[in-house]
């Protein structure tokens, strides 16, 4: 005999509803009285037309306590199998500095705030975003940048529309997309283009001839299979044909390689995920969009600018707001509204935290691991499809190995590799990769043969990447060596971010934003110990830009 025990729904030990809902029962009664209703349901009946009311409860269980809900979530998470990802596609694992995790990502002062429409009480956040723009301008070599977009692919589509606005017409209606762009970017761009009646041609930009119907060219830099291509000739021929050049670039690689603005790109887009933002199964992270000064009025998204306050002092606010779709409506070419502010702040703080020297060290370390891996792969009889790369290798498999065999062996070792062809595999590294990881990768590619030891590979390495820029392409290297003025300064060499962020800030959470800064994102050569191939921007002395107080407690009170 079965006994069914019926119990009243157990109220969780710590019910969440009264924590979330502001007014308590007494207050609800007072508010209803003020409005002249006897019950909440009377008010709702008077507000919502009877014809559309849902006359039954939602088919969702009753509320659980936070503890119970977290257990459910953990149960789901336990079903995941965590693989080491070398897939690339513009996504790279990263080390989120714990100081940023604690004081930005997990700080309500940063994560709960509203869009900074009221500039006077949002100066800290606006300043972090100005840092983001400065960082992007500095690394891309372009003159103006916005305060983030949703992702790299949609940013590339926005760039296509900018190019169309500048150069396009009914007869000049073709957007050329290099076939070595990330596949998801090609797809997003094609979808957007198709809806607007723009033709997309894909092919090899380095050998293509652009006709008078092409208004723009999109290039991936480095390419999706890792090659650092010298695009100067492509850029010249695109310009000669009357088209704009858009680069979709990897921000970390730009710490070391020639910035797109210097080889002729009119627009540079990309994502900043690998600047401290966890992969997150695809998002969120902040994309960037930089262009030349002459196109500033067509820049999509929000732009932070410096103005002055009523006392004549510098003050920040969102600039050029009349460009937004609220004004232009159906004439707008972009519907961008929400940005990725929290993630842009994290990326900008990552740059501030590491400073130019730290970023250069990270980029060089990543590249050195890639060079180590390449040397080992070559010893195993595999080929690397490009001589010049940053952190991503396209491996041409030697012997009888096939991509499926290698990818299968990798999966057994808990590693994700990317299929690039029947006999080629892409491996994209990142700042978390250790020598042991490289060793594990070599074991996969050794396919049962003894794998070379990484320790033996680094001795004669001499940074193949730097060497290739120096010797393999003298022109690019000479070009890269030209000193250029850099934008301002994002260096936390004094550790101020840490001091300020960690200090007790009961009185003013805005202090978390205060940072003193000294030199540029991109390091001066000698200080950073970089070889002559790496650009040596002119370092201005005495920069000292304090992030002022800003994240307003008041903002969190009654914001729409």
């Amino acid at each position, binding site marked *: 005999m079965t006994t069914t025990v019926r119990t009243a729904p157990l109220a969780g030990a710590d019910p*969440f*509803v009264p924590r979330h809902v*502001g*007014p308590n029962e007494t*207050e*609800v009664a007072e*508010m209803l009285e003020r409005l002249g209703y006897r019950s909440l349901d009377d*008010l709702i009946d*008077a507000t919502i*037309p009877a014809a559309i009311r*849902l006359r039954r*409860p939602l*088919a*969702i269980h*009753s509320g*659980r306590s*936070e503890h119970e809900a977290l257990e459910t979530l953990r149960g789901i998470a336990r079903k995941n199998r965590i693989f080491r990802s070398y897939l690339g596609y513009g996504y790279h694992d990263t080390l989120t500095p714990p100081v940023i995790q604690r004081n930005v990502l997990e700080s309500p002062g940063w994560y*709960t705030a509203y*869009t900074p429409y*009221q500039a006077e*009480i949002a100066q800290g956040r606006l300043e972090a975003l100005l840092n983001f*723009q400065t960082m992007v*301008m500095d690394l891309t070599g372009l003159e103006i*940048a916005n305060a983030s977009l*949703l992702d790299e*692919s*949609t940013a590339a589509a926005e760039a296509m529309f900018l190019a169309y606005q500048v150069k396009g017409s009914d007869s000049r209606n073709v957007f050329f997309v290099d076939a070595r762009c990330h596949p*998801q970017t090609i*797809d*997003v761009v094609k*979808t957007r283009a198709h809806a*607007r009646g723009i033709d997309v041609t894909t092919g090899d930009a380095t050998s293509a001839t652009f006709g008078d119907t092409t208004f723009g060219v999109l290039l991936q830099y480095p390419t999706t299979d890792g090659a650092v291509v010298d695009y100067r000739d492509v850029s010249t021929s695109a310009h000669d044909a009357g088209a704009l050049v858009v680069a979709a670039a990897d921000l970390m690689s730009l710490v070391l390689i020639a910035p797109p603005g210097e080889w002729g790109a009119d627009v540079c887009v990309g994502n900043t995920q690998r600047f401290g933002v966890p992969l*997150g*199964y*695809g*998002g*969120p992270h902040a994309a960037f969009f930089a262009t030349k000064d002459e196109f*500033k009025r067509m820049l999509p998204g929000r732009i*932070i600018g*410096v*103005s*002055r306050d*009523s006392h004549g002092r510098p003050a*920040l*606010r969102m600039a050029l707001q009349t460009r*937004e*779709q609220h004004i232009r*409506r*159906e004439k*707008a*070419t972009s519907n961008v*509204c*929400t940005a*990725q*502010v929290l993630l842009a*702040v994290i990326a900008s703080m990552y740059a501030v935290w590491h400073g130019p020297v730290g970023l250069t060290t990270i980029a060089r370390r990543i590249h050195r691991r890639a060079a180590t891996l390449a040397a080992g792969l070559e010893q195993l009889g595999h080929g690397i499809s490009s001589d010049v790369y940053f952190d991503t290798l396209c491996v041409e498999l030697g012997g009888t190995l096939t991509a499926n065999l290698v990818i299968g062996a990798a999966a057994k070792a808990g590693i994700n590799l990317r299929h690039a062809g029947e006999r080629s595999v892409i491996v994209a590294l990142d700042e978390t990769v250790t020598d042991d990881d490289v060793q594990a990768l070599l074991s996969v590619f050794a396919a049962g043969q003894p794998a070379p030891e990484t320790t033996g590979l680094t001795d004669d390495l001499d940074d193949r990447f730097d060497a290739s820029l120096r010797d393999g392409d003298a022109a690019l290297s000479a070009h890269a060596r030209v000193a250029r003025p850099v*934008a301002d300064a994002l260096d936390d060499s004094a550790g101020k971010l840490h001091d300020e962020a960690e200090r007790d800030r009961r009185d003013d959470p805005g202090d978390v934003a205060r940072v003193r800064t000294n030199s540029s994102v991109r390091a001066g050569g000698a200080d950073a110990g970089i070889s002559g191939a790496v650009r040596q921007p002119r370092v201005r002395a005495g*920069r000292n830009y304090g992030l002022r*107080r800003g994240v307003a407690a008041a903002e969190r009170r*009654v914001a729409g």
Partner: protein
Amino acid sequence: MSLQPNAGSQGEYAGLLTISAYHQARGESNRIVCLIPQSAHGTNPASAAMAGMQVVVTKTDAKGNIDVADLRAKAEQHKDRLAALMVTYPSTHGVFEESIREICDIVHEHGGQVYMDGANMNAMVGLCRPGDIGADVCHLNLHKTFCIPHGGGGPGMGPIGVAKQLAPFLPGNPVVRTGGSQATGAVSAAPWGSASILPISMMYIDMMGGEGLTYATKIAILSANYVAARLEEHYPVLYKGANGRIAHECIVDPRALKASAGIEVEDITKRLMDYGFHAPTVSFPVAGTLMIEPTESEPKAELDRFCDALIAIREEVRAIEKGTMDREDNPLKHAPHTMHAVVSDAWAHAYSRELAAFPTEDTRQRKFWPSVGRVESAYGDRHLVCSCLPTDAYVEQ
């Protein structure tokens, strides 16, 4: 559902693409007209244009509701080319329009699909459902309704839910298979948008439960009506439903104060900072007004404190109207007041420092100081600088 769109605006674009693909699959690729009411948010027409649709604007009546006769006429006029209607519900004016069912029926009768902008879903959860009302697509702003924190302006998410006939056309991804059987192209880089923030909404729904979610909606409506009732004795409150009730937001109209006291909405928003508040939405959906959406999560004491501030500001304006306060040299025109301005030996205003910085007892206990004085936007647009300034720009003169 498609989780791919990373913002409400991307949901609009994705939803309209899905509608276009549906019409094309039925051999009706001539259906490209998108009806959009005058009162719609600016992203609606921008998204329609992005999706390759032709926008036809329909009228809004004096009460802020969709003019059903005009909508019917325009649907009739474009019946062979009608693709969709974009409608926000409850309306951008914060009202549950009685005619919504009829409006959806008219669009369906003329071969169109209904896109419902879910920006105001906070007023509907558990009480009515877009699908029952007649919507074929609806996006959800997870950062508005399902508790993803605003982040200072992102991350957000705008996943779309669609009716059965549109499901085959939900967006795909070239790397990871997702979306419908005849998927449109990708609308975002990642197959499931901003996947890592979805657990926030999941946790919220799990902890609230069906009953709690419905209760929250009711309290959001109660709070908005309470704020409206307290303020309407001091400022006109625009747009109400059939029984004088609003949904989850109210529009307060200070436009008359310009003639009577030279005070504009901007002066009020800046003065609110001195009182310790961030202004609500300004100039949307009606230029020169404030739209207040208190939500369910503020206790009554906080709502009262906010209403008290707006009422006190109205009294300051009354002093200007009566001539007891100067039309130019008053705490509204010079708001917000920084600590530097208030402690300066050079204080030369006709009103007291105390009124400037501590207008209420509450501000004496919990003062938040704006870090700069009122920002001149036009100056910055004329002298555009979008990167960090050198240090010497900050040297005090």
